[in-house]
């Protein structure tokens, strides 16, 4: 699960790099409709992983 979260956020960051290098309409579309959902999904997966690992309880494990 952590690998999938990392992959999704990595995809989002590659798109940010595209936008930073060439801020254009097509890259803005990628940023808004692929990058942002990928970032959101990655963070959500990470949150679920942390919650399942007991991050909110007393017995914590590493991510």
């Amino acid at each position, binding site marked *: 699960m952590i690998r999938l979260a990392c992959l999704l956020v990595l995809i989002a960051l*590659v798109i940010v790099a595209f936008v930073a290098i060439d*801020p254009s*309409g097509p890259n803005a579309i990628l940023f808004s409709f692929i990058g942002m959902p990928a970032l959101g999904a*990655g963070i959500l997966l*990470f949150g679920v992983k942390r919650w399942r690992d007991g991050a909110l309880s007393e017995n914590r494990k590493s*991510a």
Partner: protein
Amino acid sequence: MPKLVGEVLLLTASASDAWSAGVGNGATPLFSWPPPHRGLDWLQILPLVFAVPAAAVLLIGLVRGRLVPAVATAGIVFLPVAAYALGALLIMEDSKKVAFCGSCHVMTPIVSSLTGDGDSLAAVHYRRGLVSHEEACFVCHSGYGIWGTIDAKMAGVRHMLRTVAHDYTFPIHLAGPFDIGSCLNCHARAATFRAVVPHQDPDTQQALARGEMSCTGVCHPAGHPEEALKGPAS
């Protein structure tokens, strides 16, 4: 060493004002306005500053399959969110530029028509330098005031959605009446504008204010040439 310092200072001084430096080089500084960007474009660099360390953390996580929680939180949440916030700011700022609008193929012919010999209202304004050459689309299509800017950004998101869904037909047309606040923002206080008899007519003023008629099409030429609205294949 002092010579090296002197050279660095000289380079810094000459780079700090590229526009005035053009005078000495025999260039045409008056015609090359705006001057080249001074220093680093931080709005383009800052998203990368946050994205690169985050990517390093993510690559380690991808290979190893586990991360220290604090590092994982920074690499998966905080640094990417910061990179995205700065990226969004960059897009918000750069989407005002004519080059940004022209980068989508639907708009390319319209942007190209600005520099042509046509008599469309946009081309006339652009050619005479009555609107900023960098932000001409935004100046006329954003409406007046902060709500105009917000409306323009919302319209930009709708344009992106329609582009992704291929939900558009040629010739493209403006969604709703043109906000004449953009025109009046410059013209309303001009004596030449107020002196025109049709502009003084109360009925015309009411019709314009209610959006029942537009400046273009009837009294003034169309905003953009018909051919440009038919898409890039025309």
